[in-house]
């Protein structure tokens, strides 16, 4: 990422903040003074970036100004933390930033991994068809492992009810004429572990 575009992102953040600076509480005064800091000196070092990633994998601190707390932990500014997160989102290093729910607790207990053995030359087309179904939340291609595992296309359906999910799969098979395709449906029956991925080991 070039210096220029980093500066542009910071500029955007400043503009956004200027809208809120009229806030009568004066809460923004800290952030405002931080922005005045020299931007180049302000850029996150690689180790700070690594640390920020570790924090974002674990989750924001529960506080009114979470980014400010993170900035203090990293010994940098809130503006720089916000800019870095925004950059990572734009670069798609972060593919989702927000609430991560425990879907089973929310009632999504009929979670089916549907695996298909699709001819290599058709796999992109079938994947596009399956992905167009609103009930399909993920669709990936993975390698076959013959003879144990003949399936190369995976999709996930997170549903509240097993019968509904089964009916949805039947409807897809019919709609896309996939009855000839070898497939398997693996409902989950127990979550042994659910946590965010930890690429980095360090953290606060």
């Amino acid at each position, binding site marked *: 990422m070039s210096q220029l575009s980093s500066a542009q992102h910071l500029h955007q953040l400043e503009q*956004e*903040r200027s809208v*809120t600076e009229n806030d009568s509480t004066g*809460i*923004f005064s800290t952030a405002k003074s931080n922005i005045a800091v020299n931007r180049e000196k302000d850029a996150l070092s690689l180790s700070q970036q690594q640390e920020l*990633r570790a924090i*974002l*994998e*674990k*989750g*924001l601190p*529960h506080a*009114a100004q979470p980014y400010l707390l993170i900035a203090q932990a990293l010994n940098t500014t809130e503006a720089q933390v*916000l800019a870095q*997160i*925004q950059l*990572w989102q734009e670069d*798609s*290093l*972060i*593919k*989702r*930033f*927000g*609430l*991560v*729910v425990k*879907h089973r*607790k*929310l009632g999504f207990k009929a*979670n089916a991994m549907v695996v298909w053995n699709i001819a290599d030359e058709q796999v*992109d087309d079938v*994947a*596009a068809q399956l*992905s167009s179904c609103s009930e*399909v*939340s*993920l*669709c*990936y*291609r*993975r*390698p076959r*492992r013959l003879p144990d*595992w003949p399936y190369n296309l*995976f*999709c996930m359906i997170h549903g509240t009810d097993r019968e509904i999910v089964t009916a949805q799969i039947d409807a897809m098979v019919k709609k896309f004429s996939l009855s000839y395709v070898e497939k*398997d449906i*693996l*409902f*989950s029956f127990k979550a*042994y*572990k*659910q*946590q*965010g*991925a*930890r*690429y980095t*080991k360090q953290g606060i």
Partner: protein
Amino acid sequence: MTFLLTQLQQDIINQYQKGFPLCSRPYKALAEQFNSTEDIVLREIQVLDENGFLSRIGAVFNHQKAGASTLAAIAVPESELDSVAEIVNQFEQVNHNYGREHRYNLWFVATANNDKALAEVLEEIEKLTNYPVLILPMEESYHIDLAFNINFAVAQQSRH
């Protein structure tokens, strides 16, 4: 099982899985959208967290850009499933681990800094469990839409 979520809790869940405000006071921004207050929003999120509905507010990194990652599976006799799952869970690099209905009945996702580190984790799992691991890395991602929309009956308790 009964759980009642306030309308505000449901709105927060439905709207902020794919994006969270990047500003100094994100909960104040949420509150403005829902005609609520920062304190109430913070409290509602705390309640969701304490009752186990929320894993975290944070980032899901792109597996391919962020490091090495793979789906993996083991075929385990049912009587040993819990104990093998426990061995797999001990690895910090394992972030999801599910029992699924199939001969391959234990499915987990492992992530590491790089391919070599990932391979070492999988080898170690094979060694400790004594079962071969089916390694199924993602080759192509066609579609990801992991947001859950809920619409429950609203809790009757006052939230004002």
